[in-house]
């Protein structure tokens, strides 16, 4: 049975609208320092006629494409660390498969309600979480030492080489089970959760955390994307305009970034997420249909 009232508009109106909206989201995502997926799913799911199943499939591919595009540069500059990413990715990608299977089995109203609650939680994290450029790691834990999770990178802002290592690895890996499940279940990129865990809990420098998180998404979202693809929850008519719109918007966003006031934009993105999260929650609860 259809879950959403059918539109009477011709088919081309929606991909065109999707392209325009995702282009704007791409700009805002870069300026607000968030991934495209976290904006895409609640906004497109809340205001477009597509079923949330197809929106989540598209959301994963949008986040995946962004991560794939950013990955090579981040790896070559040694900001994304394979030694940090690989163990984390194994946990998160396995969990994302489970999350995707749970998400596709749940009823849309349940998904929307949980998605809304999650987005509001993300808003709270974004509004309150602190970041640490160079967290103090008093003693690397045994697991990270055994795996050799450490590195050195050139920090241009201070003109020095920075050595880094991590601690609390077992706890961090355990949290990536939860992050992976949520990424798969809601089709969200999980940068909003990856960065605080890598940076604040495990103690990786902020730049390494942000870059490794982005690279990590290319692996986590791959596993969930396959589940959505194999279930038929991927419609090219939704995926391609979104993917191109977000990528072009991101390119423009990078150019605007130099002139923009990041704090004001961060709060604009938080406001947008708050609105989209409330919309999703109220839609799920049947209050705002």
């Amino acid at each position: 049975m259809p879950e959403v009232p059918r539109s009477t508009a011709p088919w081309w109106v929606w991909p065109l609208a999707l392209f325009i909206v995702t282009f704007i989201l791409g700009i805002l995502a870069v300026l607000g320092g968030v991934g495209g997926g976290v904006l895409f799913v609640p906004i497109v799911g809340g205001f477009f006629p597509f079923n949330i199943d197809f929106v989540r499939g598209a959301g994963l591919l949008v986040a995946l494409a962004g991560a794939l595009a950013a990955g090579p540069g981040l790896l070559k500059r040694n900001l994304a660390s394979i030694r940090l990413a690989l163990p984390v990715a194994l946990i998160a990608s396995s969990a994302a498969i489970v999350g995707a299977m749970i998400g596709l089995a749940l009823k849309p109203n349940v998904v929307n309600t949980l998605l809304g609650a999650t987005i509001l939680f993300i808003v709270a994290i974004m509004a309150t979480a602190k970041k640490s450029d160079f967290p103090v790691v008093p003693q690397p834990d045994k697991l990270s030492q055994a795996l050799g999770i450490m590195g050195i990178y050139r920090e241009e802002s201070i003109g020095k080489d920075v050595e880094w290592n991590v601690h609390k690895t077992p706890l961090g890996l355990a949290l990536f089970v939860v992050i992976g499940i949520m990424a798969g279940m809601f089709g969200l990129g999980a940068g909003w959760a990856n960065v605080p865990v890598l940076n604040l809990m495990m103690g990786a420098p902020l730049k390494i955390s942000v870059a490794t998180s982005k690279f990590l998404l290319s692996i986590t979202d791959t596993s969930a994307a396959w589940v959505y693809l194999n279930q038929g929850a991927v419609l090219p008519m939704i995926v391609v305009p979104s993917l191109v719109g977000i990528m072009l918007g991101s390119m423009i966003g990078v150019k605007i970034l130099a002139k923009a006031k990041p704090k004001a934009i961060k709060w604009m993105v938080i406001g947008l997420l708050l609105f989209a999260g409330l919309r999703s929650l109220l839609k799920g609860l049947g209050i705002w249909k």
Partner: protein
Amino acid sequence: MSDKTKASEEQIAYANVLNIGMWFGLALLIITFFVYISGVLPSYVPIDDLPKYWTMRVHDFNVALNAPTGWGWASLVGKGDYLNFIGIAILSGLTILCYLVILPILARKKDRAYVVIAIAEVLVLSLAASGLLKVGGH
């Protein structure tokens, strides 16, 4: 950049494959999308009818249109809509290829823990890609 701050051999190898594969997959996806909307190839689901179906849950969509699941799309790439799945599958499968490329490097370095992790990841992603995992309950 000093030698100490340079990316490792496996990291560079991963990045190179990712870079080529990403642009190839993305370009192919955009080209096939224009083939799709231009109507050069017939679509499995007529484009004009799509708005009737994209509001449905995926399970209902599949039943209503007898749409394929798993790798069933591969037999329909002659249709404009399913042609797009080639680019999507390349983007989704690229990570597996990247892991396969770095595996021999990790093995040569006798980095046993990461060889095991990389093999496990290839198995996990291959399982996800296989179409063996079925989602129930609707």
